[in-house]
Structures are given as C-alpha cells and as structure tokens.
C-alpha cells in the first residue's frame, strides 16, 4: 500500500480531518452524541489509517510504543485522580460539585477531565492493540 499514489493522497487529505473530528466529538459530548470513548477510537483510527498506508513504523514514529503504554495508564489515573480530588476537597468520591465554587461549573469541570482521561486511555488501548496485532508478523518468527 506504500506505493499506491491514490491511497497516499487520500490518506494525507483525510487524516487531519479525522483527528480534528475526534477532538470535536470529545469536546461536544456535553451537547450531542460523543464523549471520551468515541473520540479516543476515532483518534486512534486516524493513526491506524496512517499506519496501514505508510507502514507500522511510520505510526510508531508518531506515537511510540512506550508512550502508548503510558497513555493507557495515565488516562485511568486522570479519571481516578478527579475522584480523589473530590475526596480531598471533602466531597464524596467522584463528587464533581465540590470541584469549583459553583456546583454547576464543578460538574462541567469534572466531566471535562473525566472524558479526557477516558479518551487518552481508549486511544492508547486501541493503538496498543493495533501495534500488537500488526507487529506480530509470521507464525514462523519466534516471538514471545
């Protein structure tokens, strides 16, 4: 697929819009269908398309394996961190209302950070799955 000009051109045109759409879906989850999981998957799909067209190493150059594995952990920690921040501000666990001076703003802030955590984890997981499966190679190769 590396040498097919049509695929190369279309991918180069589409991938920026895919990534932008992922960000749109992420931040408009409050007002329409969307949110963290969908945004993470769309973002990962953009990177995977790049990997399919230009080769696995090109995708790994953008988001290296160690970073992707760290992304999985960091997203969960952001989500749990929001809950622990609520605990420290003397609310219940994951009580968003105490996160700001006004409960409504607190809810917005809590959902914002939680969805970012979800998006990071989901993007990391999807990319890790792609890297693992695509990097497997032939059965004859001795891999652990």
């Amino acid at each position, binding site marked *: 697929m590396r040498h097919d000009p049509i695929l190369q051109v279309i991918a180069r045109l589409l991938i920026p819009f895919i990534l932008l759409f992922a960000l749109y879906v992420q931040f408009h989850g409050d007002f329409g269908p969307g949110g963290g999981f969908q945004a993470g998957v769309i973002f990962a799909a953009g990177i995977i398309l790049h990997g399919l067209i230009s080769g696995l190493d090109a995708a790994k150059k953008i988001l290296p394996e160690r970073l992707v*594995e*760290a992304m*999985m*952990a*960091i997203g*969960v*920690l952001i989500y*749990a961190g929001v*809950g*622990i921040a609520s*605990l*420290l501000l*003397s*609310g*219940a*666990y*994951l*009580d*968003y*209302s105490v996160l700001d001076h006004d409960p409504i703003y607190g809810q917005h802030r809590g959902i914002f950070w939680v969805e970012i955590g979800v998006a990071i984890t989901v993007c990391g997981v999807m990319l890790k799955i792609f890297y693992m499966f695509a990097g497997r190679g032939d059965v004859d190769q001795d891999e*652990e």
Partner: protein
Amino acid sequence: MSLSNHLPALQVVIPLVSAPIALLIRQRHLAWALMMVVSWLSLAISVLLWLQVSDGSVISYAIGAWPPPWGIEYRVDSLNAFILVLISGTAALVVPFSLHSIEHDMHQQQHYLFHTMFALCLAGLLGITITGDAFNVFVFLEISSLSTYVLIALSRRRQALVASFQYLMMGTIGATLIVVGIGLLYLLTGSLNIADMGTRLSTLPPSRAVYTALAFLSIGLSLKLALFPLHQWLPNAYADAPSAVSAFLAATATKVAIYVLLRFYFDVFGLPRLNEAGILPLLMALAIAAMFVASAIAIAQSDLKGLFAFSSVAQVGYIMLGVGISNDTGLTAALLHIFNHGITKGATFLLLGIVMYAIGSTDLSRLRGIGRLMPLTSAGLLLCGLSLIGIPGTSGFISKWYLVLAALEAGHGWLAFVIVVSSMLAVAYVWKFVEVAYLQEPDAGAHLQRKPVLTMALPTTVLCAATLYFGLDTRFSLGAASAAAKVLLSGVGGVTP
C-alpha cells in the same frame, strides 16, 4: 478530611488506582512491593468495614454524592462485609506468595503485567461485593473476569491459552445472560438500585417477565459460579493457570458469584417469589448432581491440580445445596462454607504451588513418596484434604455439620444421608494423594529442584493454620455467617427470624 467516612469508596479505589501505577512501574520488584502495600491496605479497610457493621448496621455510601436510588450506592452490611474480608485476606496472602512463584510461569519482563492484572482483578472482586447497584455489579464482574482471563493466560504452558479461551467464551455468555436479567428487572421496576428494585418488585403481581428475569440471572450466575453442568471451564482454568492465580481464583472467583446470586435472590426477588417460581428444588437437584459427579470425576484425575479443581466444583454443590434448602441454618451453612472452603482451597492451591516450585510438576506420577521429601507440605495437603472430607477438628466439618442440621430441620432426612455419602467420595480422592505421598517409595533420582522460600511458605502456613483454627474456634466464622443469613432472610418479603 476524615478518611473513615470514605472507606467504602477507598476499598475499591486503592486497588483500582494501583493497577495503572503498576503498569507505569515496569520494574518487577517495585510493582510487587506496591501490590504488597495495596493488598494489605485493602485487608485493613475490609476489617475496619466489618467491624463497623458487626452490630448489624448498614453503611450506605453515595458515589458522586448522588443520593440512591438515582445514584450508584456502595452498601456494606453483614452479608458482604465478611466476603470483603475473605477476598482481601486471600489477596494479602497470595501477593507475597507470587513473588517467587511466578518466576518460572512467565518471563521477567512480564511480571509487572501480572501485578497490574492482579490489582484489577482484586478491584473488580471487591467492587462486585461492595456495590449496591445492579449494573455496577455487571461492570465490576466483567472487570474481574477479563483480568482473570489474562492472569490464566500468563502461564508458560500452552494449555493455559486454550483454558483461558474456553473460560472467556463461557464467562462472557454468563455475563451477557446476567445483563439480560438485570435489563428485564430494570424494565419491570424502573430502578437499578438493588434495595430499591426489591421494594418495587414486591409490589408487582407475579408475571412471566419476573420469572424470565429470574431464569436469566440464575443461568448467567450459574455459569459464573460453576454449578454443574455449567462447570466445564473451571477444571482447565484452575489446573493450567499459574499457581498463585489458581490459589486466588479458587478462594474467591466462584464465591463472589455465589454472593451475587444470594443478593439478587433474597434482596430483589425475595423468598416467597422464589418459592412461587420453584427454582430452589432445581438448584438442589443440580447441587446434588455436582456433589456426586464432580467428586467421581475427581477420583479419576491423575494431576493434583485437576483433582482439586473438580473437588471445587463438588464443594460449590454443597454451598448451593445450603442455598436451596434456604432456611436459616441452610443459609448459615452456605455462607460458612463459602468462607471455610475459600480458606481450604486457597491453602490447597498454595501448597500445590510450593510443590510445583520445588518439584516442577503436580502430576501424581512424579510425586511418589513426597511425604518423605516434603513432609510439611504433604502434611498441609493432608490437612486440607481432611477439611474437604469434613473430619471433625477442621473447618470443613463445621459447614458440613450445619448443612446436615439444615437438611434435618427442613424435614429432608434423605438429604442428610446424601451429604454424608458424597463425603465418602471425597475420602476416595484424598486417599489417592495419601497413597502416592506416604505409601509409595520416592523414585531413585527424586530430589527437590528448589527449596521453598519464606515468602511462599509463610502465607501457606497461615492459610493451613486458618483451616485448622476455624474448625476449632468458630466465633468469627459462624458469627459472621449467621449474621449474614439473618440479613438475607429479612430481605424483601422475608420474615425476620
């Protein structure tokens, strides 16, 4: 900020947060140290929670400060407090054991993954037990199940991959059936909070939808708790998994599913509705089949791990028999056996882990004369075997005794006879081990490849001592079990005894 108000949330949050931290810490000793701290902290929180509810009170914690029944509620009462102690206690003992036992199960670069998955499994099991929201039960059930599939597959043996795949198939079907049951209950009552569901369901007339929900939940949970004939995943999963994983699963996985069954049966449906549906005699029939068939298959096994795995299926049969009888003594017996069998099987698989570490195999043909080579380990296995049979002086005897009492109280004298007869089958498979270990000469070149280390020996000794201790001093186990049985029976539509 007083932490003690937030103990229910911290019980789940601490293991859950330690999983990504262990993923970031790639160094295996640091990850293990983190898991030691986390599992012992969880045990401390469980014990504190149990002390808080030991007078019969109920702790209700609203996640996100949304009041129940609209929000998710973590609810601790006498029923789940002692299961929390069982789960975190087993984890606190298995984690030190795992430091050395996973060394020849997986490559050293993968050890941190083991600890990550173990933390997730622990968080999932604790979450299932502590939550009061029906859909939250499903979410945590899947968290613990998925991490279990990974833990089983982390073994060097390729049979573990097949075992994990089979468990994934059956476990996911079970979880999906559970979610169908929860969905039907939600459509009937409009609520997802377990306590609220129960109150609303009791006002509804009997209808096919209620019985369908009961049926789906029962089958789904039977798949998860390995009730005969839906037990096919368990023997391979326990036998082919790494030793630490087998020990942890044998003590907790099926027990938590039994807890969920009890919670739904008595707090949502209520005893009158169960009797209307006629499901309890069916459970009793399957339980009796489990007791006989699984014990019989255990006798035919040549590998000790497979033998004790089938023994687990039989012991689940005993617990479900107590549930089926469902009077006060029957439920006390079932809950007691959940605890006692958890300790006994945990000890058994830890001992088998030591055997695997020292000899390299748990196949009976390689273990000739092991009573002489490893006297303490064999004595421990003998003790656990006696507890499985139900010899007086061991914890297994106490639960079997209460089971027999329950059968006699309910007027089923023949059931008491059946229980005693099936215990004879347990004698047969324990005798298989005793004969090979003590009555046969060791092979000419037999020797220990590795001496067992302290981190493996100490937790095993604690569990073996517990198997003996709770057979002699039953204040904690019996007190907790009968308090829990009273909570169950005073649920929806029940009578306060």
